């Protein structure tokens, strides 16, 4: 059943005055009303939308596998503020938040559902600007070493030189590679990531360079490789340290000559790609040990970016936790407002061998388990609880408390006395005096 839209219909006038997109569906998932904001966000005129299947109009990332309206109609419970994206007619992804509710008639019978949605593009842009002080191209940090990297990234991106990003697992090497790509003149072309450590030589070679028909059994037609897919854009060779010596020779040729040969082909193909290599091992050390080719190392080490592990940028832990919780709030039907100070204290005392990725997993674990609006100690993974009890002795006096407070603040600021004093709002000589009083010296870091 399609409701006829009439301009003088009071309900429609109200709906059209709302800034959020609103549409309603009947029991057959057909659109029965579509307000002006919905037209604007989806770029689909109301007359084209009415009577159509909602998934053909809405085209959201959740339509097929995680439909919010379906969940609401099934459970009878509304969903609020779920962050998803829709794809408009030009292929652009538009971030939106959706809310759903059951639609009932005057007798309380379910006659369909209503979905409201809000374009988050502007809000996300504003949020990005708001966080700009400590955030750059989705990388969040206020650590001085990281801020230096933020400063030079645009220059590096502009240069088109090969970049080597080194850092432990989970430090954000791929984020940095994507930032270099997004800031470069190649940003409108794809960035293609390949994990060199995840596949054997033969597979890696065909993945990178592709093959021509007849190159081997089952190769019935030409298949372009990742270099062809990234033409004009960027290739990120992740975990390059794991590449075999034979494959290193092939990569060296690509970087030197900017050409490669698909498997089974006698014709070289020109590669117009920028190469970014990433490694969680120190390549220089591997060269010294004879495990990595020196000539390849010098070819990829034109510009080197070294990412510090999280234990060396502990001042970022509160920022990152806030960022993750904020993101989960948008993604999941739950609202967490804050993190208890003791939780942050425990996290600040932990060394994070898995770096930012491990912190993100901890944040998600806590978010899922949290039953109220504040993340508490009970929400942390099990391994944190005994460690927390053992590592924090009882406080017997105000002096004990102040000493511990100072140590925490120093750790947060990577033992920089100037930054710690600034954070605490005291003069650096006052801090120095208190450190001397409690026997806190730089050697105890």
């Amino acid at each position: 059943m399609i409701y006829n839209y009439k301009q003088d219909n009071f309900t429609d006038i109200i709906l059209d005055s709302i800034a959020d997109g609103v549409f309603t569906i009947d029991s057959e998932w057909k659109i029965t009303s579509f307000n002006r904001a919905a037209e604007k966000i989806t770029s689909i005129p109301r007359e084209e939308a009415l009577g159509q299947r909602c998934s053909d109009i809405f085209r959201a990332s959740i339509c097929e596998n995680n439909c919010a309206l379906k969940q609401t109609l099934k459970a009878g419970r509304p969903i609020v503020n779920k962050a998803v994206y829709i794809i408009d007619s030009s292929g652009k992804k538009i971030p939106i938040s959706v809310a759903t509710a059951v639609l009932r008639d005057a007798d309380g019978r379910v006659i369909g559902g209503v979905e409201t949605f809000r374009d988050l593009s502007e809000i996300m842009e504003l949020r990005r600007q708001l966080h700009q002080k400590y955030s750059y191209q989705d990388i969040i940090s206020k650590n001085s070493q990281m801020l230096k990297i933020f400063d030079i990234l645009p220059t590096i991106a502009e240069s088109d030189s090969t970049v080597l990003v080194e850092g432990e697992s989970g430090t954000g090497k791929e984020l940095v590679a994507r930032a270099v790509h997004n800031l470069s003149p190649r940003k409108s072309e794809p960035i293609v990531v390949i994990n060199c450590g995840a596949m054997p030589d033969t597979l890696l070679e065909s993945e990178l360079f592709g093959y021509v028909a007849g190159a081997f059994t089952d190769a019935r037609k030409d298949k372009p490789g990742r270099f062809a897919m990234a033409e004009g854009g960027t290739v990120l060779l992740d975990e390059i340290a794991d590449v075999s010596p034979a494959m290193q020779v092939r990569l060296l040729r690509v970087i030197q000559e900017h050409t490669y040969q698909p498997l089974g082909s006698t014709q070289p193909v020109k590669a117009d790609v920028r190469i970014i290599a990433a490694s969680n091992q120190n390549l220089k050390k591997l060269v010294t040990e004879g495990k990595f080719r020196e000539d390849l190392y010098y070819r990829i080490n034109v510009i080197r970016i070294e990412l510090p592990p999280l234990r060396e940028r502990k001042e970022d832990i509160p920022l990152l936790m806030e960022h993750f919780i904020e993101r989960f709030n948008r993604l999941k039907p739950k609202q967490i407002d804050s993190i208890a100070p003791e939780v942050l204290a425990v996290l600040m005392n932990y060394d994070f061998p898995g770096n930012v990725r491990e912190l993100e997993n901890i944040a998600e674990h806590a978010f899922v388990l949290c039953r109220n609006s504040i993340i508490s100690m009970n929400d942390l993974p099990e391994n944190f609880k005994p460690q927390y009890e053992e590592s924090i002795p009882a406080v017997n006096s105000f002096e004990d408390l102040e000493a511990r407070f100072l140590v925490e603040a120093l750790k947060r600021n990577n033992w920089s006395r100037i930054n710690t004093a600034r954070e605490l709002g005291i003069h650096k000589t006052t801090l120095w005096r208190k450190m001397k009083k409690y026997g806190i010296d730089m050697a105890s870091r």
Partner: protein
Amino acid sequence: MNFELTDVQSMKIAIATWNERVSPVMDSARNLMVVTYDEGAEVSREKLVLPQVEICSRAGFIADLGVQVLICGAISRQYEMLLERSGIQVAAWFRGDVDALIAAIPRGELKQARFILPGCGQQRIRRRNRFGQNRRA
């Protein structure tokens, strides 16, 4: 709309499917129907599950099937670009019942409004040279 597909003498066409219809969003599609034509006649249909990996690998997976044309609903620019560079012609912004759509292909009836997503009168297909340089058809 300038997409036409009447010459299916010998080719493989993949359609992103969901509940026997064209999947509305290719980026989150999980199923493919691969239809093989030989000498103009349909010889086989195969249902496949798309691996839930990043889009670059998904594009590679579809290319490995030997598919020449992919018919789908809405698709992001990035995914479309990667598919085209994998040697696949992308026919996006379609909808409708999969069986009806397959029947309409050799008859050249894909232009019918029932197969076109609302607000998308601009179905397009790009032709490429062997390694991904696009030129508009």
